[in-house]
Every structure is written in structure tokens, then in C-alpha cells.
């Protein structure tokens, strides 16, 4: 009796579900925690951009201040300093003052505060990276599920669609779309996005990466399609929509979640590249890519303008990739086993 009781009580301890297990694994993963903490810190600082610009630096990061002045060591100096030696050619933006109230990281060619633009730029870069990753993953999951589940003509057509997108080098496609859409904006039925809107790079980047997520999802669904529980659902008369929602989707979500931080990092890098090439975020808006572009002409005199956003891109991309690896490890037991082996 005693033994029986022990067995019964033991059996009654609820087993942890896969999600809780994954979360617990993630919480134990120091790399994941550190990466997440750094990412959240960067995001938080960037979200405080308006506070920094308006209440600390008292500057408008979107308005040119070419003829403006600022205080350095108590002296009023021009933001763009004319060369007075030699032939007196050229002007140089003020460099980092390391004074949080006055051009902490210096000025760009338009006399704007680089620090304020760095924070605003980070806000936009992260917004675009995260939004486009979310949109991309949602669309990719949907298309991948439909393609894998229904098979046949639907699968063929959707695969053609993926192949067509995949046939283009991703940057070439993104640049082409950007060049076209940046001129007149996007008008698709009721959807209208202005030429200077941040949503344009979001949608463009999301679109070009859809096959990269949809393909693995489709492959997974193809495998699931032959599993017993799917056959059972079909057997009891479950509708396709119900099966997709109740049986397929929960199995696909971990895959998509693994992709999410990785796609955020990739999309952020793509946004930076597009903005660097002047076909992403449009001035006077800032992103880390546009600030690097602004700093390109100042590499010899004011390298900080390009270095600061470059550093931020590297840090953010690294922590997102580390986080992505940890999420994959937590959600994919096989990967964990491979790692242990």
C-alpha cells in the first residue's frame, strides 16, 4: 500500500510542459540572459531618445543646424568649424565633447547632434528590424503551413513564388523594390504608404525574407502531414482550418520563434545596408545605416559619426544572434542533445 501510494503521488506531480521547460532552460542559459539584458538595455536607451534630445541635449535631431553654435568648455563655438589655416578650405563638424548636454558624440555635416540621432536611429532600426521580422515570420508561417498542408497545386504555386523571390540576391531585390517605392510610395488597394514612411522599409524587408522562413516551415508541415495525430484529426472530421490552427500551428510555432531573433538581426542589418545606400530610411529620419552614410564623408575628420552607429549595429546583431542560438537550443531538444553529445 505504501509503495502504491508513493507511486500514485509521484505520478500526480504535473510534468513541465515544453514551453515551461524551454523557458527554464533559457533562464539557466547565462548567454541568453546576458544577451537579452543587453538587447533590452539598448532598446530602452533608444526608446528614451526624445527625452535625451528634448530634456538633456535640448536639440532637434531632424533639423539642420549648419549655422548654429554650442558650448564647449564654457566657450561658444560654431557647430561647423571653418578651417582657418592654409587656404582656409572646408568646414569640420564639431567632434565629441563628451558633455552629455552639448554634442556628446559631436555633430554631423548638417550640424545635428550625433548622439541624439544615434538614439533616434536606434529606435527606427530596432523598430524596423523587429516589425519586419514579425511580419515576415507571420506571413512565412502562414504560407509555409498552407503550402505544406495542402500540397498539390497550392504547394506548387507557392513554391514557385518562393523560388522567384529566392532567385534574386536578397539585397538586389530589396534595393530594386526600395528604389521603385521610394519615389511614389506604395499604393495597394486600400493600403497606402507614403514615400518617406518607415513602413516602406519594414514591408520591403519583410517581403524579401519570407522564403527564408517559409521553406523550413513548409518542410516541417510536410513531415507533420504524415503523422498519426493529423490523420486522426482528419478522421474525426476536423476542418482544414481547425487542423491547421489546433494541430499544425502549435508544432510550427517553436520553429518560428527560433527564427524571430535571428530574423530581427538579419533584418536590422538589411535595413542598415539599405539606409546606407540611401534606399532605406529617408532623411531627415535617422537609422543606424543613414548615420553611417552621413559619416562616410567624415571618415578622415570625424570618424565617430560612422563608428558609433557601426558599433551599435555590431553589438545588437551579436546579442540577437546569441539569443537566437539559445532559443533554438531551448526549443529544439535534438539540438540540445547534439550540443550535449
Amino acid at each position: 500500500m505504501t509503495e502504491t501510494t508513493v507511486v500514485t503521488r509521484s505520478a500526480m506531480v504535473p510534468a513541465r510542459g515544453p514551453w515551461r521547460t524551454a523557458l527554464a532552460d533559457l533562464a539557466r542559459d547565462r548567454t541568453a540572459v546576458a544577451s537579452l539584458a543587453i538587447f533590452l538595455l539598448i532598446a530602452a536607451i533608444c526608446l528614451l531618445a526624445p527625452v535625451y534630445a528634448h530634456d538633456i541635449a535640448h536639440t532637434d535631431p531632424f533639423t539642420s543646424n549648419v549655422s548654429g553654435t554650442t558650448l564647449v568648455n564654457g566657450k561658444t563655438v560654431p557647430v561647423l568649424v571653418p578651417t582657418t589655416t592654409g587656404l582656409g578650405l572646408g568646414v569640420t563638424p564639431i567632434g565629441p565633447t563628451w558633455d552629455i548636454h552639448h554634442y556628446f558624440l559631436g555633430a554631423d555635416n548638417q550640424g545635428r547632434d550625433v548622439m541624439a540621432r544615434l538614439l533616434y536611429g536606434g529606435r527606427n532600426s530596432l523598430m524596423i528590424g523587429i516589425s519586419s521580422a514579425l511580419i515576415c515570420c507571420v506571413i512565412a508561417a502562414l504560407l509555409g503551413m498552407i503550402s505544406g498542408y495542402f500540397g498539390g497545386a497550392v504547394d506548387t504555386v507557392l513554391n514557385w513564388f518562393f523560388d522567384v523571390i529566392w532567385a534574386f540576391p536578397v539585397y538586389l531585390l530589396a534595393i530594386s523594390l526600395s528604389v521603385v517605392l521610394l519615389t511614389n510610395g506604395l499604393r495597394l488597394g486600400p493600403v497606402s504608404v507614403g514615400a518617406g514612411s518607415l513602413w516602406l522599409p519594414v514591408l520591403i524587408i519583410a517581403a524579401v525574407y519570407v522564403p527564408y522562413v517559409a521553406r523550413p516551415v513548409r518542410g516541417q508541415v510536410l513531415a507533420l502531414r504524415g503523422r498519426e495525430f493529423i490523420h486522426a484529426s482528419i478522421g474525426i472530421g476536423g476542418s482544414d482550418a481547425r487542423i491547421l490552427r489546433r494541430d499544425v500551428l502549435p508544432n510550427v510555432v517553436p520553429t518560428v520563434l527560433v527564427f524571430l531573433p535571428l530574423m530581427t538581426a538579419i533584418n536590422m542589418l538589411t535595413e542598415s545596408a539599405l539606409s546606407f545606400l540611401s534606399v532605406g530610411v529617408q532623411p531627415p529620419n535617422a537609422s543606424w545605416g543613414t548615420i553611417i552614410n552621413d559619416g562616410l564623408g567624415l571618415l578622415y575628420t570625424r570618424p565617430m559619426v560612422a563608428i558609433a552607429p557601426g558599433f551599435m549595429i555590431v553589438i545588437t546583431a551579436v546579442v540577437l544572434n546569441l539569443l537566437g542560438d539559445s532559443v533554438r537550443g531551448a526549443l529544439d531538444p535534438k539540438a540540445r542533445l547534439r550540443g550535449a553529445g
Partner: protein
Amino acid sequence: MKHHRTAAALAGAALLSAIAACGSGGGASGGSSASASGAAGSSAPAAAGYEAAHAGGTLHLVANAAAGTLDPQINYTLQFWQLYQATYDGLLAFQKVNGQASFQVVPDLAAAMPTVTDGGKTYTFKLRSGVEFSNGKPVTTKDVVASFERIFKVSSPTAGTFYNGIVGAGACLKTPATCDLSKGVVADPATDTVVIHLTAPDPEFPYKLAVPHASILPASTPAKDQGTTPIPGTGAYYFASYDPNRALTLKRNPYFKEWSSAAQPQGYPDEITQTFGLTVEDEVTAVENGQADWLFDPPPADRLGEIGTKYASQAHVNTLTAMFYAPMNVNIPPFNNLKAREAVNWAIDRSAMVKIYGGANLASPVCTFLPPGFPGHVDSCDYTAGGGATWSAPDLAKAKQLVKESGTAGQTVGVVVQTDDVNKQLGEYLQSVLNQIGYKAVLKPMSSNIQFTYIQNTSNKVQISISQWYQDYPAASDFLHVLLSCASFHPGSDSSINIAGFCDKGIDAQMDAALKTEQTSVTQANTMWGQIDQAVMKQAPVAPLFTPKLIDFVSSRVGNYEFSKQFYMLVDQLWVK
């Protein structure tokens, strides 16, 4: 041109009487005995003053990219026009000397300045004898007639603006392939004379004969764009090779004998190469290191400081008769409203624009459309805080008020600029100003190759842009008549140089009157142009920004730098020995 060019009008009488030192052919010391290439021309006699000891060597030029076709009757870029000075000749030429004298027109393939008769409608030229093309064939009157017809057959960019006054040009413009100028350009091989008949007097015509589009080419030259195939010329050099992806090479013309040091002087280097493909940053570094002798492109902003200090002795800064300006489309909102255009003029801080361009030593703010120092220019400024004849400061409050009064506040305004660093920065600044005064400005950067034609075409509905204008020759009409007359506004065309689409019948009548007055009194005409300039600025179809200066950065081994105000640095006059 990339630095855009067009026609202009200066004083006819002064011009026609300006028979400069010409025909001083010959005479001189032995030529470039040190020629490495060994071209026959190396030993060609040169004018007194030619320093043979400096002849020889190879001059290495660098440019970010090639400038398109090598055909001198088609190409319209400063980059190649500079090289054409040493390779091609017209009946007349701008004097190849330093400074203001370079605006003077002198006889080139013509033995003397033309005889002008029939009230200014007939120009009679006597062809210089003994001149040969670089293929060894002599220059004949047949070549002259064929060259003028070829201007129309190849649809030269200036065929309709510079040479449309030649009798028969109208038909040539309509059907270029069958162009026949037998009544407009009449040759007499027996006397080596060429008579050009115009439909109306044109005091600027000598200028138009002195630009590369009027180069005299062999009659056998095919009547189509020759692209990368060099056409034989009569200059001191000939194009030996041209690969737009790599380089072009000029070598001494073996058949060249200097006939006029003013029109076509003997050059110094034996060979001149222009290499393409380096970034501008790399070009600067190459010149600093002595790996190149000169860069065509303007040095980037972040290198100006070091050029002006560490390499000051190698930098030459010259004032240009040119203008950066912001044309506003007067036919579509919001700039079809005078107050909106005035607001832009009040709001722009020209000194900020100057700073972006490189500072006060590289540009000067302006408030009129005729650049300071240009014929007809009068100091006058309707849009400066505190008043005054020259621009001193913007008045943002007034600009905001005008935008409010115009009822255009809140409208979206597209700012179309070129993608190069300076123009993009200027565009960003203009965008910022427009946002400040109440518009929603969107910056539309566009490749330099297409921006200039894009902003001209009304179909593109460009509201405001930033453009530049570099004089073709020193005449007020080159700015006012060419850029802001009804005649130069062609809706729906890529070739509508009146970018603002400004067509004011009253001002147009004043321009016509000034053009007519030029035939009799240059001074009076210039006074009229000055008044027209002010009348135009009252309508504010454009916002003049600044006049630029040009930096020529040369290597330490280069000597004998000479700057023609007309065609800029005289490339073949540089010493590399």
C-alpha cells in the same frame, strides 16, 4: 554638361572688334626634344614663350568615371570639354590663357576674325592654310561645311539653341538625317573662304563657334555618334585610345604645327592619360602621393582641410561664373503661388549652403540670378533680413508668415537632388528649411546622370530641385534667357532647360529687347539685363544659392598651372618635367 552649359549673350560689338593676337604661328624653339613617344609633333615649332625644357613626360589625370561619348559634337561635359581644348579646333576659339583674357574669342582654323556684313547676318571666314588633321589629311572648306551639317545630323545638344540661326537650320532640325546647309554655310574652295548666313543677327554667334560642338572634323566622319571611337582632330594632341571603363590616352598630334599660341598652343606633356574608376577619396590620395597629377572631381569635404593646409601649394582655387540655385516649378502647387516662392527665398540661409559646400573660401552667397562680376549683374537683394543690396541673413519668421498667407502650409514638397555628397547635403538642408516653414518635405536623391533631365521634364511634376549652371560664355542671356525664357520651356520634354517652367510674357519681351540692344550697345544691353534680373527675382521662380569656386589639386611635380575662365585648367599646358 555635367556642369551644364548653354548659350549666352554678350556684347556683340566688343566681341567682334576683339581680334586677339592670332596667327602668330610659328616661331619658336625646338619643341619637345625630350619626347618619349617620339611623335613627329614633338619637334613642331612652338610660339615664343614655349619652354621646351619642360616638354615631355606623361601627365596622369584621374576621374571617378568617364564622361560618355568622345564625340566632340555630342559630348556636353566639362570633363571632356577640357580635353577637347587640346584636341579639336573650330573656326574660332576662346583664347587659351590665364584669367579674364580667356573670354576673348580669337581666330583658330580661320585665318582672321570674320568679316561681318549684311547687318550682322553674314560671317565670312578665310580658312587658315596648311592645317592638317591628326590623320594627315588637310583641313578644307568641305570639312567645314560637313562639320556644320554634322552638328544637326548627330542632333548635337546645342543644335537647336546655338546653331538654329543658320539659314537652313530649321529644316535640319526637323529632318537631321538629310540636313543640307548649302544656303547657310557656303564654301568656296578656290579662295578657301566659308560664308555663314544667319536668319537674324546674332551677336553671340562668334562664341557659339568657339565651343567644341562647332569643332571642325574631317568630312568623312560618319554622321552618327562615334561613341568610344576617336575622331581625328586638328589640335596639338589626338585621342589615341578610349575605354570608358578604364582610361583614355592623348598623344601628340604628329601633324600639328602651332599656328596660334592663343588659339591652339603647343602642349608640354608627350602623353596625357585619364584613368577612370578610383573613388574621389582615392583620387586625392593618389595626387598627394604623386601617383596622379590631377583629379577631375571636386575633392570630398573631409579632405579639403588637409588639401588647404598640408598641400596648399598644390591647390589652386578659382572663382567660377556659375551658380547653384533651386528652381521652383511655378506651374504646380505649392510654388505656383508667388508667396510660397518668396517664402523659400526668405528662408534659405545662403551662408549655411556655403558652409555645406566647403566654406566661405569656396563659395559666396548670392541673391540675384546673374552671378556677381557677370555682365549685367547689379547688387540687389529682395530677400535678406534687414534689407540691403547683398544677402546677409535669412528671415525665417517672414517665410513662415508667407507660407501661412499662401495657404500652402502642410503640403508635401519633393526635393529632387543629385546623389553626390555635396548635392545631397544641400538637399537635406533645403528639406530641413522647407519643413521649418511649414511644408512636409521629402528628399528625392537621384543619380547625377538622370537628375538633370528628370527635373526638366514637367511630366515628372518636380516641385523644387537643386541644380547648377556653368556659363558657356560670358553673357547675361546665358543665364536669364536660356534658363528663364518662354522659349526654353518645353512641357513634357527632357530638354526643357527652363526647369522652373517660368514664362512671363512681360519679362520675355524685355529679354528680346535686351538681345536686340546687344547688337548696338553692349553697355546698354547689360543695364537692361540687370533690370531683367531684378524683375525675375521679384517673381522668384528660383532661389539663387551661391556661386562656387573650383579647386584644382595637382601633384607636386606639376608646373605651369594656367586657368582659363572659359574652359578651366589648361590641361596640356601643365609641365610634368
